[in-house]
């Protein structure tokens, strides 16, 4: 490997390692969760974190924002939250000439990193206010379109849908998230570390290790990662196998799935696999990368039917069947 190339690769890997370390100073455990968050950021995708309150979801997002040196904004979603509270609104102001004109007052969405906390506590109307921003990185107010600062990430947290006072996210909204990550209860060692770090007088602080420009460069690199045709086809077959009417769909998919993953799911899967490959120091996408990113990229895009809910079948169970039915030959 040429010296120049080796240096570049080593630099990327070193940067990502430092990001992990800094996040680890504040957010204890959940290494896999952190890696997947970084993958989504490198791929330019939005992340939906799901977990019960108190697991550190908000802390993780705040820490990432700080480590990456990104402008950070937080919106606490409540049932009475309006779309204008997120996007912004036109307000009547008096100009220097004494005229009264409407001026756009930017909402908290104009940030690089938006934390939509407990997003499913707002009404679907408010939730949908994020649609255009998440997909096109811009918002339209009063016929005027405003570009969002890049990179733009939405890191949303939500409580499990079964909880009181929650509104399920619209399918179109959910589909715009690249990943849906499950935040689980930390283990014994992690809990000890959490207690030690948060109940003493010393509060750990994460430093900034990755600039906005570096992050943008990483996102470009991710898209340049080569992928062989058979690996790409494998990703497509995986996505298609989540549809109950597909020939290669496993029995559980036929029985429990109402809608399979969309083409956007395939895009997310491939992009995530590319980012993961780069993150582990490889310069091509493999089928193993597809498997690794399969769950977080597709679990929120599969709609189960009533029978699955009645029998307590989870999406991950169905996805496991899909992987088993589609071996990487």
């Amino acid at each position, binding site marked *: *490997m*040429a010296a120049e*190339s080796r240096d*570049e*690769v080593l630099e990327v890997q070193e940067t990502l390692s430092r990001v992990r370390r800094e996040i680890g100073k504040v957010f204890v455990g959940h290494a896999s969760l952190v890696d997947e968050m970084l993958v989504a950021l490198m791929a330019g995708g939005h992340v939906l974190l799901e977990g019960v309150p108190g697991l550190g979801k908000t802390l993780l997002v705040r820490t990432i924002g700080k480590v990456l040196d990104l402008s950070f904004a937080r919106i606490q979603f409540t049932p009475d939250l309006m779309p204008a509270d997120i996007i912004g609104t036109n307000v009547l102001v008096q100009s220097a000439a004494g005229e009264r004109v409407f001026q756009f007052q930017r909402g908290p969405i104009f940030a690089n990193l938006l934390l939509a906390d407990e997003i499913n506590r707002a009404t679907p109307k408010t939730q949908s206010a994020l649609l255009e921003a998440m997909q096109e990185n811009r918002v339209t107010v009063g016929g005027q379109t405003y570009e969002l600062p890049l990179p733009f990430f939405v890191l949303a947290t939500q409580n499990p849908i079964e909880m009181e006072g929650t509104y399920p996210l619209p399918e179109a909204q959910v589909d715009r998230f690249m990943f849906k990550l499950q935040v689980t209860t930390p283990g014994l060692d992690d809990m000890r570390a959490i207690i030690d770090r948060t109940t003493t007088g010393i509060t750990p602080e994460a430093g900034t290790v990755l600039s906005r420009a570096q992050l943008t460069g990483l996102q470009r*690199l991710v898209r*340049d*990662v*080569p*992928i*062989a*045709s*058979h*690996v790409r086809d494998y990703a497509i077959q995986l996505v298609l196998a989540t549809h109950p009417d597909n020939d290669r769909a496993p029995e559980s998919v036929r029985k429990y799935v109402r809608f399979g993953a969309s083409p956007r799911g395939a895009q997310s899967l491939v992009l995530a696999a590319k980012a993961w490959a*780069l993150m582990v120091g*490889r*310069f*091509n*996408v*493999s*089928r*193993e*990368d597809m498997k690794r990113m399969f769950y977080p990229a597709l679990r929120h895009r599969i709609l189960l039917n009533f029978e699955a809910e009645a029998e307590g079948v989870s999406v991950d169970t169905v996805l496991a069947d899909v992987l088993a039915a589609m071996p990487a030959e």
Partner: protein
Amino acid sequence: MVLDEALRDRIDEVARRRKNAELMQAGVRGALGMLSAFAVVRICIGLLTGGKGWSLAFLLALAAGITYALGSPRHKHTRLSAARFIDSQLGLEDRLATAVEYATLDNNAGTSVERWLFVDAANQAAFIDPDELVPYRVPKEARWLTPLIIAGLVLSFPVFPRGLSWQIGGAELQQAAKRADELFALAEQIDRLATAHPELRQVAEELRQVGEQLRSKKLPQDEALRLLRELEQEMQQQPAGPLAGAEHATLDIAQIQSLAQRLRRIDGPGQLQGWGRSAGGGSRTGGAPVGTGEYDEYGDYGDGSDYGEPGGESDGYGAYNSSRTGDSGQPGEADTPGNQGAGSSRSGGTAASGGSAGESDEDWTDGEPGSGTSGAGTGAGRGSQQPFERLENVNRELAPIPGQIGPDGKLYSGQAQGNLPSAPEDQQHRPVAAPSSTPAAVERAIEQENVPLAYRQWVKRYFEALEPGAGN
């Protein structure tokens, strides 16, 4: 982007070896298919033809093997497929396949990541060992090759049982051809006799035609048998012609009849057995009765001999009415009800043909002597295996035994003295050899029968007491 040369060579070598290995495997499978097919086809054809058809079985098996080899799944071994194979074998996570695929792109400017990829792939070339990745090893299926080859070699030889092929017909055809040859030889001899008897020319010609049709399988075997009988009868009728009675013609007639008997031998028992039972009548050739379909109820045909074969229709006890010495040509009759023989004597009493004594398959008797009213027939036994002994001194050998009532109505109480009253000359029949063979039969009967050991001497003594000359 250009693939590293060393890497490309190794990938190509792997592709070549994979192709060769697949060809070898297809060859082994084809050989297996061929040998298996050969074994099956060879057995089937061999059974049908009595061991023949080796080349046909081989050709069919060869075709099957080639078809199987060509029909076996074939893969296109390209550089890309070889790269994927190496990736899977060495755990390279699609590095080489991706590099090979991107190397084939025309407008590939090459991003930085792609350059890293090609360098990374080139670094893997040192770990690629084509010999280790694709070893030329004998396929697992080859373990069946040795036993199949042995089976093929064994089946290449005519190891098929004659009995089975005989039933199916292979050997039967050979036998028919052999008989046809014999007919041709006989026809030549008849041709030579035809100088004295021109009417025999037609017989010879017909004989040739029968042989020809028999050989070419145009003539059914039963039909051929019938024609042979007709020819035989035609030849037998020669003495009744204008030359009958002439002294100089006696030898010719004997020759003709000898040829007729040889013709009878061609229509021998084995042929009859193979060609099916025939419902022929009891035509005799100088004491050689023709076998009939009913005959097989009580015994097999004896070997055809010049001195006669058992024949005539037997309806129960094998008491054949065979004219042995008479030359009157009158049919003999059996005096036992239900034992009437249907044999008709037409031949004169020549040395060769007259005086035939039927051979018996039982060595101690050759049947009940028939006291024919017109024919001087003596009982000719059933098909025989052993010749019997002719007794010259009838009067001495047939001495009455104690307890027997003689022709004069007297009861013999002691050893007979003197001669028995003689029968008319034309009704004399020779005694059978039963008395002289009795001891051996007794011994054998004692051995064969389930006689308790303690009683054997008693039984033996009883029979010995019955022996002529043993009583008081």
